[in-house]
């Protein structure tokens, strides 16, 4: 059985790496990389298991706390597989990008990073609410330490803020989960889904709001976002990749898996409000990105803006919108990882990530320069790349249910294009300034390889989106049937 292996492998790898680093500090990188590669291989195996087992979802159970009727339940469906694959890939990127960046206490760093991978795999595969909640919280601990120990100047503040903010949200979610248990007598997602319509609508609303707070803090949606700029910018680049690429996905995944599956009718009832949250986030983040002077912060806010888009797609409750949202979750993970990776390389070579100090870096180093341009274009939604497919499908889906919101969301596209192009115009091209002239670019083979692979994946998904769409479509249909949408 593959899921326990998927969760325990990074954990074991992290432990081995930590203890080996006590004696030989040079091997820990290789161990971490091997573990993440094996994990990616396992994720691919996971995919094959879904394909051979048909598109229907499968579950496996093990007892954990019998007195309270809690067991480990793991399942497979299209959404799970998409997220597991993304997780496997992003952690390879993160470990590769950490090779030259993390110089102190490497054993601890890679151990924490791998523990986080284990937690994320648990979140994306659990079908029991308590186990889901536990993994959800477990992810937070390594994140807290990774930001707090290896972060920038303001790291202690950022780490504590990240911890307290998201923990508060999670605890409200826990109350919601417990209320669901006492009204339905089960922690199993599928069982609750069948029974939840018995609960009176008022109680369902309370439960839904409690759950939603947990997701909204994690996604994050404006106005629950204030931990985000601190955490994303203070974190070291390898961790920023994980935070923006995967931590936000936890919230979105929760919104789809728990929000729609557990309380489909309540979700359908409040879809419009959720869409408004998404819209506000899109515009707030886009305007904030426009005002940033630092590329890393700009990327952070652009990530927030994308996440708002995805929320809009999830709220649309149409097949094409939900498919688009899941597609964009994967695509956003790839794009944001590529962006942070390249900005990290730029920062390492020039010593700065301030837009005004980076004038002319494309002519200094073509590789980093042009791929950064490529990633920016992908992120602003250039046709032919994956970002475009995601956005256009979300907009089409939203048009089916909330046509006005769709028009409003379109207005944000020029803004997105605006801040990326303006950033490129101010920094990438033109005559090199002093700092860039003095810079010394040294890109490792492994880093270049990862950059190229990510770029190819983005392009492939852009040209042939059906590959991923097929995978998730069955799941989306099942989910929408619950809400009475199809």
């Amino acid at each position, binding site marked *: 059985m593959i899921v326990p292996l998927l969760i325990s492998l990074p954990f074991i790898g992290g432990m081995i790496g930590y203890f080996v680093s006590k004696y030989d500090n040079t091997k820990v990188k290789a161990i971490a990389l091997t573990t993440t590669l094996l994990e990616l291989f396992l994720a691919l195996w996971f995919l094959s298991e879904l394909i051979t087992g048909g598109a229907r979802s499968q579950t496996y159970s093990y007892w954990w706390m019998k007195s309270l009727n809690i067991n480990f339940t793991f399942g497979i469906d299209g959404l799970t597989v998409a997220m597991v694959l993304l997780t496997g890939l992003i952690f390879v990127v993160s470990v590769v990008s950490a090779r030259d960046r993390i110089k102190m206490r490497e054993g601890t760093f890679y151990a924490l990073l791998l523990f986080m991978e284990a937690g994320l795999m648990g979140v994306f595969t659990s079908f029991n609410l308590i186990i889901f909640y536990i993994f959800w919280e477990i992810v937070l601990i390594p994140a807290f330490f990774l930001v707090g120990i290896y972060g920038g100047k303001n*790291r202690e503040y950022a780490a504590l803020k990240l911890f307290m903010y998201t*923990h508060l949200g999670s605890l409200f979610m826990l109350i919601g989960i417990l209320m669901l*248990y*006492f009204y339905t007598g089960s922690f199993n997602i599928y069982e609750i889904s069948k029974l939840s319509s018995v609960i009176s609508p008022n109680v369902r609303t309370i439960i839904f709001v409690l759950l939603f707070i947990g997701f909204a803090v994690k996604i994050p949606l404006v106005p629950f976002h204030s931990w985000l700029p601190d955490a994303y910018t203070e974190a070291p680049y390898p961790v920023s990749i994980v935070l923006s690429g995967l931590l936000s996905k936890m919230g979105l995944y929760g919104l789809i898996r728990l929000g729609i599956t557990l309380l489909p009718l309540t979700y359908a009832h409040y879809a419009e409000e959720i869409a408004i949250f998404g819209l506000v986030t899109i515009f707030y983040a886009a305007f904030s990105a426009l005002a940033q002077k630092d590329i890393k912060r700009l990327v952070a806010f652009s990530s927030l803006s994308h996440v708002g888009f995805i929320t809009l797609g999830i709220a649309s409750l149409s097949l094409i919108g939900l498919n688009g949202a899941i597609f964009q979750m994967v695509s956003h993970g790839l794009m944001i990882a590529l962006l942070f990776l390249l900005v990290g390389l730029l920062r390492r070579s020039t010593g700065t990530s301030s837009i005004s100090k980076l004038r002319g870096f494309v002519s200094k180093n073509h590789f980093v320069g042009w791929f950064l341009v490529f990633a920016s274009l992908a992120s602003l939604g250039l046709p032919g790349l994956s970002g475009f497919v995601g956005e256009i499908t979300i907009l089409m889906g939203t048009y089916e249910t909330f046509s006005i919101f769709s028009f409003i969301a379109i207005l944000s596209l020029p803004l997105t294009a605006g801040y990326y192009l303006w950033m490129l115009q101010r920094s990438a091209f033109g005559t090199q300034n002093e700092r860039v002239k003095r810079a010394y670019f040294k890109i490792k083979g492994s880093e270049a390889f990862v950059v190229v692979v990510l770029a190819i994946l983005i392009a492939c998904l852009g040209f042939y989106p059906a590959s991923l769409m097929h995978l998730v479509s069955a799941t989306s249909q099942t989910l929408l049937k619950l809400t009475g949408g199809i």
Partner: protein
Amino acid sequence: MVLEHFYPEIIIAFFAFATLFIDITLKKDHKDFLGYFSLAGIALALISVIVQSISTMASYSAGKEVQVVFFNGMIYNDIFAMFFKVVFLVVALFVVLASVDYTRKDNYKGEYYSLILFATFGMMLVAMAGNLILLFVSLELASISTYALTAFRKNKANTEAAMKYFIIGALSSGIILFGMSILYGVTGTTNIYEIAKIIPHVKDSFNSALILSVVLLIAGFGYKIAAFPFHMWAPDAYQGAPSTISAFLAAATKKMGFVAIIRILVIALPLYVSEWGVIFGVLGVLTMTVGNFSALKQTNIKRMLAYSSIAQAGYIIAAIAVISSTIPNVKYLAVAAALLHILTHALMKGGAFIAVAGVSLLGIGTEIKNYRGLGKRMPVTAMALTIFLLSLAGIPFFAGFISKFLILAATVEARGIYIWLGIFLVINSVVSIYYYGRVIKYMYFEDFQGDKLKEPKLIATSLVVLAFLVVLIGIAPQKFVHFSMYAAASLFSHGHGVVMLH
């Protein structure tokens, strides 16, 4: 034979006296032997309690009747009592193990270890007492031993702490005795289970006397468990006492108050259930809130841990308040949750204070800012302390999460007004992350240049084992939850078999 049911108590009492006698014969350089000697006694007693509780649980599940009531109702040796005995003995075990390192340079070791054993003996009797007189006498045995232990080093801080602790402790004992005497006056018996039978038939004119007695009992035991507004002595006493004794006070002695409260209020005064339910609900919320918000501004780690211990007592009190719920089976869950939190809190808080003891042994102060860079200087201690703090904050896969989760589950299942207890618990948990996280921040996040220190071996050993237990309960809680559920069920069965819930 009756005595075979009391091997743990006999062992502890024997070792307590033997320690005193051996102390006379030993030369000054060899006194560390006393530590290992009492350690052996506690370990023996612990093993026999565990064997006893496993066999008792097994006979219950096989449907066999087990003798629980001894000496004409003086002693109720049920699973509830065994659960607490396990808690007390585990704490005593680790405190003694850490004390061998901690008191290496001190005098009066014979008295130190025998007092710990006597205190443990007293607490074990409190756990079993079915009679108010026995309960009070053993409460005093345990309390007086700990007053002396607090002043063990006879320096200014110790003496001041012991004085405060003694005065408040003696006062509260007086209040408890007063409450008990009124209860006796109204019902005419000192047996807790007899009182439960008589109370429904008490004349209405005695009601005011009964209420007075309930209030006095709550106030008296409120001092013992350091509930708001009777909590002021705790930070002073824990700060001034030797750190291993702080561990003993916070992790074990305080829990003794909870046994007595649960036995007397739940068993003897069930008719007044709704009234003390409200009182405890309010007390619980105030205790956790005051504890947490006072802990926020502490700069001394022992005071911070003391206030955190007050806050944790608030969670347990909230769980006890839920017992008054009328929804069937919730009271079992509530007692089980309270018991499990008592166990996990004993492990976490005991561990945290032992870690502080280890740090202060190496000459590092007890101010939180002194802990800067501890992650590099004392990696084992810092890692264990981090686990204890995260567990206290209620993070999953640590013991504290499981017990807090059960308390939250009990409040939510009780529905109605009880759910507010759960919401306060949640908000308080988040507040607490700030001050626990701050210690971790100092240990790991701040840069510090300093030599790696040699960690005291026995303290490090006890920390590693405690941290392992904390993680074990977090990952595989089934056995422990089961034990606490059985203990809860045996409490309500009044000594006649056990009703298991499913």
